C-alpha cells in the first residue's frame, strides 16, 4: 500500500516578487512500496522538503493526489494522517520530559496510562533511552535528542515515517552512526519510510530507492546502484559523486553495448546507455574517477613511489593498438590514506579525475608523472548530449 504521489505540483506566491509565483514541486509522481525506505535527494531548494510536507499534510498540493495506505488523503490535516515525522530541529517539546515527549502521541489517542507507560518503556529500551526517561530536553546531547525524536515518531506505529534532514545538526561521526541506527530501527519495525536529505552519502547508506530532485522535478528514481552507475541525465551524474564526462559519437552497436568514437579519435565500447542510441548520435560518456585505470607512461619516474603494478597488464586494453584512451600529466595528488585522488591534465577543458586504491600496497603517482588512462566498458555509461 505505502505512499503514492500522483502528479503533485505545488505553487507558492513568490515572497520576493509579490504577485508572481514560484513552482516548488513540478509534476512529481512516485509509488513507495510498503516497508520500503525511499530518500528524496537534491540540492537545497529542489522541492524535496516541500514534497515531504505535502505527504505529512503541512502543505496542500496545488495539483495532484496524495495516497497513504490506499486512502486518498489530500484533504486530511496532518493530525488525521497516519504519518509520523522526525523534524530537522527534532522539535522536542521543551516543557516535557523525555518519557512525556515519547508518550505524547499515545496520550492524544486517549490510550490508558498503563499502555502508554508500557509502550514508552519498550521503545525507550530499543532506542537506549531508558536511563534518560526523566531528563528535560535541555539536558540531552544532540544525538540523544535525535533518538528521542525518532522514538516519539515510532511509538505511534505510524504506517509512514517521515524524516526531514534529521541528521543535519549532528557532527560527522555521530551522523554516520545514526544513519545506520535509523536503518536498523526501520528494518526492525518494517515501517514505510520517506527520508529527505541533501547528503548523498546518507542517501546511499539508508535507502532502498533514491529520488533525485532538482528545481522541483524528479530527475531519476532508482536504487543507489542505479543512481550512481546508471544516471539518467547529466544532472544526476554530476550531483551524485564525482564524475568525468567525455564527449563522443556513436559508431555502432557492439557486444557489450555501443561503440563510441571520442573527440580524440579513439574508439571504445560503452556498457550502458540511458536511452537507445543510433549510430551518428552525439553522446556524453560518464566515467567515475575510480573506474579510470591509470598506468605509467613515464619509465624514468617509475622507481620513485611507483611499484609498476599498473603496467599495461592490469588495464584490459581492448583498443587494437594498445594505445591508451587518454594520456596526461598528473597535476594534483591528494593522499587520503585509503585512496589517492588525482587531477590529471589531459589537454581537455577540465582536468580528468581519477582515484587509485590501497596506496600502501599499490603505490601512487607523483605530480608531473605522465600516465595513460583507460576504462572498462562495464563502468562507462552514455547519456544524450543535450
Amino acid at each position, binding site marked *: 500500500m505505502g505512499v503514492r504521489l500522483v502528479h503533485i505540483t505545488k505553487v507558492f*506566491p513568490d515572497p520576493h516578487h509579490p504577485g508572481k509565483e514560484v513552482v516548488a514541486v513540478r509534476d512529481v509522481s512516485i509509488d513507495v512500496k510498503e516497508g520500503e525506505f525511499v530518500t528524496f535527494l537534491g540540492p537545497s531548494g529542489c522541492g524535496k522538503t516541500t514534497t515531504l510536507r505535502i505527504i505529512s499534510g503541512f502543505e496542500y498540493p496545488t495539483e495532484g493526489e496524495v495516497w497513504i495506505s490506499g486512502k486518498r488523503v489530500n484533504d486530511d*490535516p*496532518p493530525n488525521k494522517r497516519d504519518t509520523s*515525522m522526525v523534524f530537522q530541529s527534532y*522539535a522536542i517539546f*521543551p*516543557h516535557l520530559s523525555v518519557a512525556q515527549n515519547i508518550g505524547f502521541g499515545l496520550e*492524544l489517542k486517549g490510550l490508558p496510562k498503563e499502555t502508554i507507560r508500557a509502550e514508552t518503556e519498550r521503545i525507550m529500551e530499543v532506542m537506549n533511552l531508558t536511563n534518560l526517561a526523566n531528563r528535560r530536553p535541555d539536558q540531552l546531547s544532540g544525538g540523544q535528542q535525535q533518538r528521542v525524536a525518532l522514538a516519539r515518531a515510532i511509538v505511534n506505529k505510524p504506517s509512514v515515517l517521515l524524516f526531514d534532514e534529521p541528521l543535519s545538526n549532528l557532527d560527522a561521526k555521530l551522523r554516520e552512526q545514526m544513519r545506520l541506527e535509523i536503518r536498523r530501527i526501520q528494518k526492525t519495525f518494517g515501517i514505510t519510510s520517506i527520508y529527505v536529505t541533501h547528503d548523498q552519502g546518507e542517501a546511499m547508506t539508508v535507502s532502498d530507492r533514491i529520488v533525485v530532485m532538482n528545481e522541483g522535478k524528479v530527475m531519476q528514481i532508482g536504487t543507489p546502484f542505479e543512481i550512481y552507475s546508471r544516471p539518467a541525465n547529466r544532472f544526476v551524474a554530476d550531483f551524485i559523486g564525482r564524475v568525468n564526462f567525455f564527449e563522443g559519437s556513436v559508431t555502432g552497436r557492439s557486444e557489450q553495448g555501443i561503440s563510441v568514437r571520442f573527440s580524440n579519435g579513439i574508439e571504445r565500447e560503452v556498457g550502458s546507455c540511458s536511452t537507445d542510441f543510433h549510430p551518428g548520435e552525439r553522446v556524453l560518456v560518464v566515467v567515475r574517477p575510480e573506474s579510470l585505470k591509470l598506468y605509467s607512461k613515464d619509465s624514468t619516474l617509475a622507481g620513485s613511489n611507483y611499484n609498476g603494478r599498473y603496467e599495461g597488464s592490469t588495464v584490459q586494453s581492448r583498443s587494437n593498438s594498445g594505445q591508451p584512451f587518454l594520456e596526461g600529466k598528473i597535476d594534483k595528488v591528494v593522499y587520503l590514506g585509503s585512496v589517492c585522488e588525482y587531477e590529471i591534465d589531459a589537454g581537455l577543458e577540465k582536468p580528468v579525475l581519477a582515484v587509485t586504491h590501497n596506496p600502501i600496497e599499490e603505490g601512487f603517482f607523483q605530480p608531473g608523472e605522465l600516465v595513460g588512462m583507460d576504462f572498462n566498458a562495464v563502468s562507462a555509461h552514455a547519456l544524450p548530449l543535450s
Partner: protein
Amino acid sequence: MGFSIGALFGEECMVSSSRWGREVRLLWGDPLLFIVVLFVLTSLILFILYPLALVVATSFKTPEGFGLTIFLEVLKSRYLLQGFWNSIMMSILTAVGGSLIGFLFAYTLSRTEVPFKKLFHVIAIIPVVSPPFIGAMSIIMLFGNNGLITYSLLGINNYPIYGFRGLLFAQLLTFFPIAYITLRGVLESISPTLEDAAMDLGGSRWQVFRKVTLPLSIPGIASAMLVLFIETMADFGNPLILAGSQFPILSVQAYLQITGMFDLPTGSALALLLLVPSVTAYILQKYWVSRKQYITITGKPTASVIKSVHPVAQWVLFGLCLFVVFLILLVYLTILWGAFANVWGTDNSLTLKHFQYVFGVGFRAVLDTLTISGISTPLSGILGMVIAFLVVRKQFPGKQFMEFTSMLSFAVPGTVIGIGYILAFNSPPLVLTGTLAILLLNFIYRYIPVGIQSGIAILRQIDPAIEEAAIDLGADAKKTFLRVTLPLMVPAFFSGLIFAFVRAMTAISAAIFLVSSHWNLMTVQIMSQVESGRLGAASAFSVILVALILVAIFVIRAILLYRYGRMGGKLLNI
C-alpha cells in the same frame, strides 16, 4: 489615521485574490479560529478604532456638517498653537537627550568593568516601575517655592522651576530608562567578537567605537528616540504639575478644554493634533527603523574579555552615570521623605499622618486601583497572547489590520483615547460612563501591546516545528495550543504581565477622563493632592503605589520561579 489604514488595505489588495480566497476558506474550515478572529477584530474596532474615529469626526464637526472651522480657530489661538509647538519641542529634546543618557548607561553597563553595575541597573529601572509624574512632584519639592534645595538650602524664593527647564529635567529623568533598556538590548546583541575583530585589524578603541559599535547601534538609537518622542508627546502627569501657564503643553490643554471649559470639539481637535505626530513616529518606528536593525551573524559565541574601553574613558563614563544615579535617588528619596514629613519645606519633622490619611479617607482609591489593575491586567495579557499567536502563527484575512490596530494603542496618547472613550461611551448605544467597565475596557485595550510584544517575542523563539510535531502526532489546533504552545508561552505571559500591571497601576492620562465618584484611582488622587498643595499626602500615596507595584512584581516573579524555576530561562534555548 485614515491614511495608514488605507495603506494597509492597499497592501492586502496587492496580494493575489487566490490567496485571499484560500485564507477565507481556511477560516471557514476552522470554526474556532473564525470565532476568535471575529471576536478580536470586532472588539479592536469597537474599543480602539471607534473612539479614535469619533475624536477625528468631532474635531471636524461644524454646525453645517464637516469642516475645518475648529482647526482654524485653534490655529488662530496663539496660546493653543504654542502648546502644540512646545509639545513637539519638548518631545524632540527628551528623545535626543533621553537616548543620549540611555546610551551612556547602556554602554557603561554593558561594555565596561566599573563597580556597582547591578545597583546602577536597578536604580535606572526605578522610574519605569513608578508613576511617571513622580519626577515632577519631586522637582517641585526640591526646587519649588518651599523647595528643599532652593528655599531651605539656598534661601531662594520663587525659583522659576515651572516651565521649560523643570519639565525637561523631569521628562529626561522619567523616560531615559526606556532608552536605556532598549539600547542595552541592542548593545548586548552586538557580538563582542566584532569589536575584537576591529581591534585586531588595528583599530584604536575610539575607532572601534566610532566605526563598529556606534554604527551598529544607530538603528537602536533611532528606535529609542522615536519611542521617547511618543512617550513624551503622550505624557500628561509631568506637564500638568510642572508646565505652568507660561509653557502650555498640548495634552494638558486638551484635558483642560474638556474638563475646564466643557469644549469637546476643541478638546478633540487638540487631541487630533496630539495624535498625528505620535502615530507618525510610531509608523516610522515600526515600518522603517525596525527593519533597519542589524542582525549580527555570529559563529560560536565567545566570552570576550571586556577591554574595548580605555580605563580613563571608563571612569569618566562611570562618573556621568553616578551623577544620573544620584539625581534619581534624590528624586525618589525626596518623595519618601515627603511622605513622612509633617509639612514639607516648613516643618520636616517625621509623622505618619499622611499614611493614616491614605489608609483612611484615601483607601477607597487604593482598593479601586488594585481591583481595576488586578482584573484588567490578566485579561489584557491573555488577549495580547491570543493576538500574538494569531499574528505569528495563523493566516487569515485582516491579519495585518489586526496587528496594526492592536499595536496602535501604544502610539495613541492616553489623552486622545480618554477623550475618545468619553465621546464613544457617554451616550447610547453603549453608556458606560462612571462604571467599572469603562475603566476596565480602557485598560485592557490600552495595554494589549505589552502582551502582544512579549507574546510575539516568545513565539518567534518557539520553533514552529514544535507545534507541527504536536499536530503530526495527532493533536488538533485546540490541543496543540493548550498542550504545547500555551505552556511554552506562560513564562512570557507572566513577565508581560509585570509591565502591563505597572502601566495600569501608574496610568493617568486616559484614566483621568474616566474616573468617577464610584471608581477612582490612586494616580488621580495623587494629582488632585498635588494640585491642592498637599504634597505630603501625594507622597504617601506615591510611596504606597510604588510599594504595591514592587510587591506585585515580587509575587509574579516568585510564582514564575516556583513553577518554572527548574527550566527557568533555559526553556527557550532549545
